[in-house]
């Protein structure tokens, strides 16, 4: 039992290290090849995916989520929070992208001049 916990920390640490270095090296390759070897459309989703993978690794191996006796409520709360985060972040990006899209830079400058800022 005790060795099991110790081993789970070690596995979590090593897997997290691998994730961090993989993302870092992908970005290094991307920069050094002047954005050619790995295009943006592949790079950005893959490093985001690695980050989410590392989140799951740390939740399981460091926080031992789902192994306490109040596990059910902890997980329900966590999933609810993740949904809220998704709405906040994706919603903001979506709305602001559309605002930018529907406004040319000339209109934007005009707006900023008229209102003296946003």
């Amino acid at each position, binding site marked *: 039992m*005790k060795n099991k916990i110790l081993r789970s920390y070690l596995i979590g640490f090593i897997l997290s290290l691998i994730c*961090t270095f993989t*993302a870092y090296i992908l*970005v290094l390759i*991307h920069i050094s090849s002047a954005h050619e070897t790995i295009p*943006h459309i592949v790079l950005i989703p893959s490093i*985001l995916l690695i980050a989410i993978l590392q989140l799951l690794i*740390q939740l399981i191996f460091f926080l031992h989520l789902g192994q306490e006796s109040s596990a059910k409520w902890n997980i329900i709360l966590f999933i609810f929070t993740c949904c809220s985060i998704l709405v906040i*972040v994706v919603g*903001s990006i979506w709305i602001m992208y559309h605002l930018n899209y529907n406004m040319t830079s000339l209109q934007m400058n005009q707006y900023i001049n008229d209102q003296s800022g946003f």
Partner: protein
Amino acid sequence: MNMINKEILNKSEEQFNQDNKTYFGFWIYLMTDLLMFAGLFAAFAVLRSSTFGGSGAAEIFNLPFVLVETLLLLTSSFTCGLAIFFASTGSLRKVITFLFLTFILGLSFLSMEIYEFNNLFREGNTPQRSAFLSSYFSLVGTHGLHITAGLIWMTIMFIYILKKGLTKGAVRKLTLMGIFWHFLDIVWIFIFTIVYLTGVAL
């Protein structure tokens, strides 16, 4: 005899439920804190290209420097986990050793961040410079404040366990602190990926 046993059992069960309530309450706090970070992340994602003619992410961030910061925090999260583990086995010396290691690693992380901010300020990249820098400083600065709070909490725990030993209460408080520290490391993964890696790549 039977009744006494029953009483003891009831009492320990009560204590167990109480502890679980404490952990659950702390978890609720962490989730609301996560929502605040989500708001800051959303602000950063929206404002990241609004540099107002100033320098963008690719010019001001130093990736190897940030990688070292990330490794420091990740290792501190690991050693903190070990400290909590040894607290549950009751070996005070190992708890002190690993907690001290965690503290040193956390402190070096914070010093590197302050050094980085100081460099940015000296180059004129203050929060007032552009919307991008405002959102950057509020996101990373809030994380830094949390780290500072964690370090203060750790100092208090040092004094607590040196005075009172590894009592049940101490182990519970240490566990909560460990959860907090792991949480900060998880938030940093996303700062590292979204602010620094994507910032430099795009």
